[in-house]
């Protein structure tokens, strides 16, 4: 079993560097990290601002997701955080990092972690476009 060093759903600014530093370990030869950043365009429309809303269970679900990845892959350490509340263009909504002994496992585990967060984490993204319209993503 690896070490789950951060699982966080909150409003604070996220940094990929922080999760990378958290998973660094003398046993780890490879660190793969992911930053999912808020873009200024979505499907060709210009985004003015964006907010993520989280269900009260989001923190617990993220902890389950982290445990599942740790069980499926040969992880030295992992760290993952999802932001909620208003997020500025260019800032990160999701950051994740995985360290492993060998690089193939780090890529596979980090990608599976991000995919599982997208699938399971009960959070919702609300976009307001520069033309004044808005949408809840995946529910239009």
């Amino acid at each position, binding site marked *: 079993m690896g070490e789950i060093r951060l699982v966080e759903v909150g409003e604070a600014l996220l940094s990929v560097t922080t999760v990378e530093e958290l998973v660094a370990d003398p046993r780890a030869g490879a660190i793969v990290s992911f930053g999912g950043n808020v873009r200024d365009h979505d499907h060709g429309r210009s985004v003015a601002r964006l907010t993520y809303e989280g269900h009260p269970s989001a923190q617990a679900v993220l902890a389950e997701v982290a445990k599942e990845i740790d069980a499926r892959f040969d992880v030295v350490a992992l760290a993952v955080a999802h932001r909620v509340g208003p997020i500025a263009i260019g800032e990160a909504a999701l950051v994740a990092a995985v360290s492993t002994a060998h690089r193939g496992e780090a890529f596979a585990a980090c990608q599976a972690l991000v995919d599982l967060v997208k699938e399971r*984490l009960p959070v919702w993204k609300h976009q307001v476009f520069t033309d004044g319209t808005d949408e809840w993503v995946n*529910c239009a």
Partner: protein
Amino acid sequence: MGAEDVEVHLFAAARAAVGESVVHVPAGTLAEVLAALEDGYPAFVAVRPRCSFLVDEVAVHDPGMAVAAGSRLDVLPPFAGG
């Protein structure tokens, strides 16, 4: 709220459709509770088919399942994290 009501918590697009974060509807099967919401909030009709449901924090898929008085129903639109 009567003791015979279900407390419905609405999130994201479901909340936007209903216009409230929390509403109360009479207990019944899941199908009955959702039908009551559609009657009371017509904009919810478009959102309902894409939602999933928790009763007292447990996922519920069977429309015939009873949602008891005093329980909590969470209405969750499709997730969009990351």
